[in-house]
């Protein structure tokens, strides 16, 4: 290392004394770096590399030419370039496009430390990562430094785009896997399974009417992690879902058609911009509870070799706590890790215009570094009060694999919503006709005030869903009594065994027209329940066309037809798609289905009705007894709080019993008449009418509700 002067400045920056090289290592011209931001940042003429380690004693920057096995340079950070625990250095004249980088670190041994100077470590802040550039392409298993950081231009032109800030109560969420949506040949995509292909499906999303897509993990993960051959099919079983993060700041390269050109950042931003232009928000499913490094037996990729005791929750003996069920637990309430999570989400919100985040196993984020649940978790509080995340949706999966279940009690700070697991469970039991479920479903329909009422959170805290990626699809919920996970090669032991599902009379596929018709009717009942309930509805990818996973309720490893959406179902189950689209339109036409506050049975305007009232076979006489299978409720728009007062009367009745019977309709004020919007007892297209086309009822006093059927009436 020598100090240099009269070396000249890199091209184009001769005028900038602040970026003039001051040091040299071999042919490389250097300057002490800036500690912030962490990661590799393009600066005039060079790249600023900055990396933190609380206990490393030395750090070396390792540079590769793209795709080459061996590094072409190793530049030790001069000790004078270290500030506190941060090593930072500007390297000039790098070919941004051709460089891959990593770090070597050395440090002390002993419990809690895992330094390995042989390992070339991935930068935890890398914004693009190479090594798994094309999905499913078999890697060179002996390649040194299998995952490497790459440099990213931060010059995307968003024009006038920014996050949409749709009020959360107006969202209809569609949960999708980027690859699953378009990998099937029926998708007709030029680049199946990619961000680019998803962009081609925007017209479909618009047609369905959803205004928010929640993407299953897109942070860089390794689909080859724990991959194995299925003894049944001989196919490779992959880490398909991707709930195992390799790098928190990098979009998954293999999900981008242009990943092999290193343009995944541009491709994803182009997708987000196009979705926004179509009025569709983007939520990311983020996995901050663990990393891809596993436990003591796992590979050293990044965090472990950089700062094991900072990034992971460790026992006093130095073993990994496993609250995630995946080998390790990210140490989220360590101040440095907390800052990383915050930096990461800020980056996605500011640079990718992401509209919100769903946090996988979020209860872990509220545990202290020794695993105990915190009453006032600093990370959750920081996220809730962060200026840049100020308008982002924050959604918790409010439980973890360590037994912490916080649905209804997740520390919310007035910001956090939750995946409402109780909605899923109660909806499933009610829909299949279980006894004693009417009282529970009434709570779910009205936005779960039992969970979100006392603490002032309101129905917008409740993400309502009947199905999600984890478990049966809607079709399978109505076609299988038992899970059928044999294809996962775990002897059907994996996956949830209590699914509250009902096969309608035959396990799996059937030719019986009666069973098929019943499944279609129950699917429509499910959409009716989901989309008339207060709270935020979430629909699983393909449920609007009855996608099947053939009874597999844990398809985490299936890179095949079990997970790929078969677009020919759109024709085969056109009645369901039409019903779902019209049901979404019905919801969006009625603000009183989307209240910000719980309805409480009061008359807020003096219009003479309670805002929300419950009914039975007789109007105004709800039957909460165990034997009752009728849930019927009325929302009186004119009596609602101001936000949803400009609305009609809406009457919903759901009969989950196997008998049809007459029900008395509540009377309407003078001048209004009941119109039928939905009757799932009828075949398509009479089962649902678009907003404005509802059919006036001849008999305004009573209605014969079909067996296992739902109706929605509009009083206008």
């Amino acid at each position, binding site marked *: 290392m020598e100090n240099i002067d009269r070396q000249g400045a890199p091209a184009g920056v001769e005028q900038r004394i602040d970026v003039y090289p001051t040091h040299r290592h071999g042919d490389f011209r250097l300057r002490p770096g800036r500690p912030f931001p962490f990661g590799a940042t393009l600066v005039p003429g060079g790249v600023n590399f900055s990396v933190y380690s609380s206990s490393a004693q030395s750090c070396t920057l390792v540079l590769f030419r793209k795709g080459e096995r061996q590094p072409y340079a190793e530049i030790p950070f001069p000790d004078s370039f270290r500030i506190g625990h941060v090593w930072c250095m500007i390297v000039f004249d790098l*070919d*941004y496009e051709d460089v891959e980088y990593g770090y070597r670190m050395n440090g002390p041994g002993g419990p809690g430390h895992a330094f390995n100077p042989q390992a070339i470590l991935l930068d935890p802040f890398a914004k693009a990562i190479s090594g798994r550039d094309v999905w499913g392409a078999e890697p060179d298993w002996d390649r040194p430094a299998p995952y490497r950081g790459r440099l990213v231009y931060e010059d995307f*032109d968003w024009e006038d785009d920014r996050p949409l800030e749709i009020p959360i109560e107006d969202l209809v969420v569609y949960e999708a896997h980027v690859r699953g949506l378009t990998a099937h040949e029926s998708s007709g995509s030029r680049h199946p399974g990619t961000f*680019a292909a998803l962009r081609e499906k925007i017209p479909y999303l618009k047609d369905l009417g959803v205004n928010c897509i929640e993407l299953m993990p897109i942070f860089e993960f390794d689909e080859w992690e724990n991959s194995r051959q299925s003894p049944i099919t001989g196919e490779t079983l992959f880490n398909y879902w991707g709930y195992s993060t390799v790098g928190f700041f990098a979009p998954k390269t293999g999900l981008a*058609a242009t990943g092999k050109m290193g*343009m995944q950042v*541009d491709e994803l931003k*182009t997708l987000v911009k196009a979705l926004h232009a179509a009025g569709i928000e983007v939520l990311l499913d983020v996995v901050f509870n663990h990393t891809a490094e596993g436990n003591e037996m796992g590979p050293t990729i990044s965090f472990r070799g950089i700062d094991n005791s900072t990034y992971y929750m460790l026992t006093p003996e130095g073993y990994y706590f496993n609250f995630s069920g995946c080998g390790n637990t990210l140490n989220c309430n360590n101040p440095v890790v907390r800052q990383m999570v915050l930096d990461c989400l800020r980056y996605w919100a500011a640079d990718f215009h992401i509209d919100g985040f769903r946090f996988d196993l979020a209860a872990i984020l509220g545990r202290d570094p020794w695993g105990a649940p915190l009453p006032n978790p600093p990370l959750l509080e920081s996220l809730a009060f962060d200026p840049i995340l100020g308008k982002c949706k924050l959604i918790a999966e409010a439980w973890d694999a360590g037994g912490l279940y916080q649905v209804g009690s997740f520390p919310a700070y007035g910001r956090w919503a939750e995946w409402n697991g109780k909605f899923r469970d109660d909806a499933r039991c009610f829909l299949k006709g279980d006894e004693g479920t009417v009282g529970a479903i009434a709570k779910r329909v009205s936005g779960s005030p039992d969970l979100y009422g006392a603490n002032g959170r309101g129905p917008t805290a409740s993400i309502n869903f009947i199905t999600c990626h984890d478990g049966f699809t809607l079709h399978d919920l109505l076609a299988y009594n038992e899970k059928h996970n044999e294809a996962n090669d775990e002897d059907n032991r994996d996956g949830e065994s209590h699914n509250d599902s009902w096969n309608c009379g035959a396990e799996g596929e059937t030719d019986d027209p009666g069973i098929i018709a019943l499944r279609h009717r129950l699917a429509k009942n499910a959409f009716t329940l989901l989309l008339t309930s207060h709270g935020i509805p979430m629909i699983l990818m393909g449920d609007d066309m009855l996608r099947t996973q053939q009874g597999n309720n844990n398809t985490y490893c299936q890179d095949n037809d079990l997970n790929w959406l078969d677009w020919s179902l759109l024709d085969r189950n056109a009645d369901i798609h039409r019903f779902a689209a019209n049901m979404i339109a019905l919801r969006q036409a009625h603000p009183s289905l989307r209240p910000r506050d719980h309805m409480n049975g009061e008359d807020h305007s003096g219009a003479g009705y309670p805002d929300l009232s419950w009914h039975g076979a007789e109007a105004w006489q709800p039957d909460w007894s165990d034997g009752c299978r009728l849930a019927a409720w009325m929302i009186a728009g004119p009596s609602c709080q101001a936000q949803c007062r400009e609305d009609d009367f809406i009457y919903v009745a759901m009969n989950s019993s196997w008998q049809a019977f007459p029900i008395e309709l509540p009377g309407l004020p003078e001048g209004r008449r009941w119109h039928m919007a939905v009757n799932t007892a009828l075949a398509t297209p009479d089962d649902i009418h678009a907003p404005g086309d509802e059919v006036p009822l001849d008999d305004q006093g009573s209605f014969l509700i079909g067996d296992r059927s739902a109706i929605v009436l509009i009083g206008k």
Partner: protein
Amino acid sequence: MEIEVRSEGPVAVAAVSGDIDGKTAPAAQAQLLPVVEQSPQVVLEMSGVRFLSSAGLRMMLLVYRHATAREGKVVLVGLSEEIQDTMDMTGFLGFFTLADTLEEGLAHIEGA
């Protein structure tokens, strides 16, 4: 990478050929920016370009910015389908006007 520049009336026509990547983009930029500064109405003949990398696309965008800053326009002629596809997926395509032939390209500029 090679660039040949000629004039068609008030329009500069630059025929670009070869690969434009991180290694050649700076040279291409050094040749094209003075052209745009002279004559911000530009047709880039791209049929000889086999590969445009991320850095190459950024060079093109810079040319576009220089042209529009001078109230000019950049028309790309004869772009290969593959490059067009990449530009579409990564958001670059929308900034440029495309034409199949030089005549069409010149017409775009005159029509502006």
